[in-house]
């Protein structure tokens, strides 16, 4: 019988935090149901009510499980699994009575904590999940510890010191396998650019300050005018909005060989960490030639993943800065349809074409038109209602956002018989020189135009003609104050919060590079480096071991060494070494010398002297006696030799 109230409270709190962490996976009614059950449990605990009987809990859990099952289609398999797991945990807690049930509960908690990471990989939330994990670990410990036991901090510290290298070593070096099978993904709304673009769709994105992706360049940062991150091609125009062509969707499966191979163009090599967008579309500059991992590189220069991104993804791109090539005549045809309506625009296009027969000239003329006439760049343009929205924009409102300008330009070009399309993506980004990466947020979403000139899709950004600062600087810089306030609403205006947010973003960047982005590639690199450095590592380890041995040996020797030998004794021992070997260990040196003087009459005189001087040096501790001794030994070298041989003979 389990009677530890504090443990039950810990588990109730833990399940509440799991409920919050997993709330993405739950409909509101499930969340409130679980919360009511948990709060009921907490109140019952605080009032010392007994646990609910197992029969009732089983009945309740059965009903909820059926309800969840009915909701399966809406929730998806993954969410259903999480719901059932949490339901099991909550029901178990409601009826918890025995120790073995508590163990099962802790086990399920561990699994649920692991599942939290499917939905969240942000550093802050990961830290929160870690805290929940530690709480669960503590309750696990308490289950097996005596009831009154406290954590033994020194032992815990030692355990952490052992675990850390073991843990990180396993993470860094344990072989990483590819996914074994296809797994259910969470049904979560996608973020970022949509499949269609109409006047106004990008404005909503621009108010979103969240990160879209981050880029690290192998070389120097390309100039800002080149930072057009292509993500989507909008080629179907219905007179008002642009859509991704259905042909493109099916054609995306057939990968042609990378086309743009202009030797003169600058080579680009960079790695992108894309946030979880729940979309397959990814980002690349100009013409990518190769991408890492199992990503698809489409012939029109777009990169896409095989399945919607449910978590951060890191990939490398190599490519050139040259524009994309035309694929086929079909593609050209596709991009000439002007749709119905907008007669004024078509007329304007016809006039321009007469003046400027060359596409490049025509485009320059459009840019000039936007620049010279009273066109405004605004986040809050008037609503363009009605059938001829392009006419309305070009000839009356004249105030709009990048999607307005791109859309209008593409329609003019198409009306003039030049194949053109709207490209959706991101422009620019914020460069962090210290951390050496470019952060691109959703607010940098942008739309521009590609027109066909000599079989090459030349990019053209009409917004740059209206508001060149938009391309060269940040969005904030070019908007008037009230529009900027629209972007930086509320707390975002506080400077220190901004700075803190920035620091957190950098931290999050390292987190995603080192922790989330660590894959088999990085692991192979690590192994390679380890192997390369192996001699150095072995040498340093051997050096450290040797040093430790020396220190230990020296310490032992010092401890073993007898009390300091007087210098006079050492002197005598060195000079008379073979003779002194015959001395019994218990006999003092001077006594032995006198004995020798008696037994060796021919040496008596100097041996007597030696004994006297030695006693003087050792017992009276006179420095001059020591010197005298040394001199005497030196003087009597010959006699010592004779003595040695005569002693040996006897």
């Amino acid at each position, binding site marked *: 019988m389990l009677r530890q109230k504090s443990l039950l409270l810990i588990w109730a709190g833990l399940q509440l935090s799991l409920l919050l962490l997993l709330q993405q996976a739950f409909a509101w009614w499930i969340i409130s149901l679980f919360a009511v059950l948990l709060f009921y449990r907490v109140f019952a605990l605080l009032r010392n009510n007994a646990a609910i009987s197992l029969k009732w809990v089983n009945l309740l859990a059965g009903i909820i499980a059926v309800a969840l099952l009915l909701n399966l289609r809406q929730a998806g398999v993954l969410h259903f699994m999480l719901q059932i797991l949490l339901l099991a945990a909550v029901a178990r807690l409601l009826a918890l009575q025995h120790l073995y049930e508590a163990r099962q509960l802790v086990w399920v908690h561990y699994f649920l904590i692991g599942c939290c*990471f499917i939905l969240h990989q942000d550093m802050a939330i990961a830290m929160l999940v870690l805290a929940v994990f530690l709480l669960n670990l503590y309750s696990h410990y308490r289950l097996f510890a005596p009831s009154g036991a406290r954590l033994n901090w020194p032992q815990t510290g030692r355990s952490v010191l052992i675990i850390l290298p073991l843990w990180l070593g396993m993470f860094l070096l344990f072989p990483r396998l590819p996914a074994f099978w296809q797994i259910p993904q969470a049904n979560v709304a996608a973020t970022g650019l949509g499949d269609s673009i109409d006047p106004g769709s990008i404005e909503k994105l621009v108010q979103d300050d969240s990160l879209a992706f981050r880029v690290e360049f192998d070389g120097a940062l390309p100039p800002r005018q080149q930072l057009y991150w292509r993500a989507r091609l909008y080629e179907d125009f219905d007179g008002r909005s642009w859509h991704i062509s259905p042909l493109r969707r099916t054609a995306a499966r057939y990968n042609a060989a990378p086309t743009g191979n202009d030797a003169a163009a600058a080579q680009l090599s960079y790695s992108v960490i894309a946030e979880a967008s729940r979309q397959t579309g990814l980002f690349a500059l100009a013409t990518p030639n190769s991408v890492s991992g199992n990503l698809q590189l489409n012939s029109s220069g777009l990169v896409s993943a095989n399945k919607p991104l449910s978590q951060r993804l890191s990939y490398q791109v190599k490519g050139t800065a040259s524009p994309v090539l035309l694929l086929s005549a079909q593609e050209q045809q596709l991009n000439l349809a002007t749709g119905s309506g907008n007669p004024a625009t078509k007329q304007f296009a016809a006039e321009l074409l007469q003046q400027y027969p060359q596409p490049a000239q025509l485009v320059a003329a459009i840019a000039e038109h936007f620049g010279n006439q009273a066109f405004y760049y605004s986040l809050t343009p008037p609503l363009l209602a009605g059938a001829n929205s392009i006419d309305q924009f070009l000839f009356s409102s004249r105030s709009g956002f990048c999607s307005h300008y791109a859309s209008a330009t593409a329609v003019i070009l198409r009306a003039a018989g030049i194949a053109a399309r709207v490209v959706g993506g991101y422009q620019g980004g914020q460069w962090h020189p210290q951390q050496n990466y470019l952060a691109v947020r959703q607010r940098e979403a942008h739309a521009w135009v590609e027109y066909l000139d000599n079989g090459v899709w030349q990019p053209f950004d009409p917004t740059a003609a209206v508001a060149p600062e938009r391309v060269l600087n940040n969005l904030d810089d070019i908007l008037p104050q009230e529009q900027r306030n629209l972007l930086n609403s509320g707390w975002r205006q506080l400077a220190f919060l901004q700075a803190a947010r920035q620091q957190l973003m950098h931290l999050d960047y390292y987190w995603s590079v080192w922790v989330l982005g660590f894959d088999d590639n990085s692991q192979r690199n690590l192994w390679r480096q380890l192997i390369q450095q192996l001699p150095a590592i072995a040498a340093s380890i051997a050096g450290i071991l040797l040093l430790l041995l020396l220190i230990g040996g020296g310490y032992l020797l010092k401890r073993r060494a007898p009390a300091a030998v007087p210098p006079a004794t050492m002197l005598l021992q060195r000079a008379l070494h073979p003779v002194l070997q015959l001395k019994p260990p218990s006999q003092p040196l001077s006594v032995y010398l006198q004995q020798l003087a008696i037994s060796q009459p021919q040496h008596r005189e100097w041996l007597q002297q030696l004994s006297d001087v030695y006693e003087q040096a050792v017992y009276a501790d006179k420095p001059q006696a020591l010197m005298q001794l040394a001199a005497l030994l030196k003087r009597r070298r010959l006699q010592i030799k004779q003595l040695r041989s005569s002693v040996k003979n006897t």
Partner: protein
Amino acid sequence: MPAITLKQRLYQHYLTFIRRYLDKRQPPADNVTLVQKLIFILPTRYGWWFVLLLGLLYLLGTNYQNNLILLLCYLLLSLFLLSIVLVYQNMSGLTMQCRTAAAGFAGETLQVTLQLSSAKPQLMLSFSFMQQQHTELMPLPATSLTLPLPAERRGKYSLPRIKISSQYPFGLWRAWSYVALAQDYWVYPHAEKMLQQADDNSTENSGAQAKAHSGDLLAPYRSGDSLRHMVWKRLARDPMNPVVRQQQFTPQAEPCWVVVPPATGEALERRLSHAAWQLLALEQSAQRYGLKLPGLTLAQSSGAAHLQRCLQELALC
């Protein structure tokens, strides 16, 4: 049923194998300290479940290509591995000995007292005799521990191996040790008065005995009363009111003899039981008594040591 007997036979073989192995590994000693050689460690059932959890987390992390789940998995794995060391550390270093031989009558439960000592606190160690159900949790601080041991047949036995086991701190691994202490325990014959006095000459002056008992009076215990006169059975029923047996007449100075005539089998057992009962009664009435066994005679004396000596002879008979 043959299946069960086969199972039992296999179990017997297993037990003898284990015994032989343990005897080789740790012969009985007076003083045993738990060291690496004596401690066995294997995962518990919960430990295996934990391994399953690790496998599931690894699958989840690999299939989602999710480093955080893998990190969690490896963290739990290193915890799992570390707890081998922790469970060992918790158990090692415990020193135990059994200084006095336990003694009791057949059919009773003996209390075996172990002396424990350790340099560090050791948590959640449970003690039991091998093949006995009852387990005792080690108290803190560890000084001594009393383990019950059921006594069935009279005789002198060596103490069975003591099983010490612990799952602290996470219940993932069980460390256990079978310790053999070089100590004996005595099981005296069950003390019971023989009902039919078929061979009445088993005690000389048994009439005096009977008379002595019939003349007993019970009186409340006062300090100074001899403990030998305590009515123990009654004390067990009502510990607040101790009662002593007071004798109305002066005890006979004349010594008496308890005689066990030669017999075998059930008859011998009955006589030994009766003799044990007699010895207890004589000791309680503070008489001098001696014991005559086939082939052995213990001189007349009295006192606890003498009683113990006599009972031991009965146990060995």
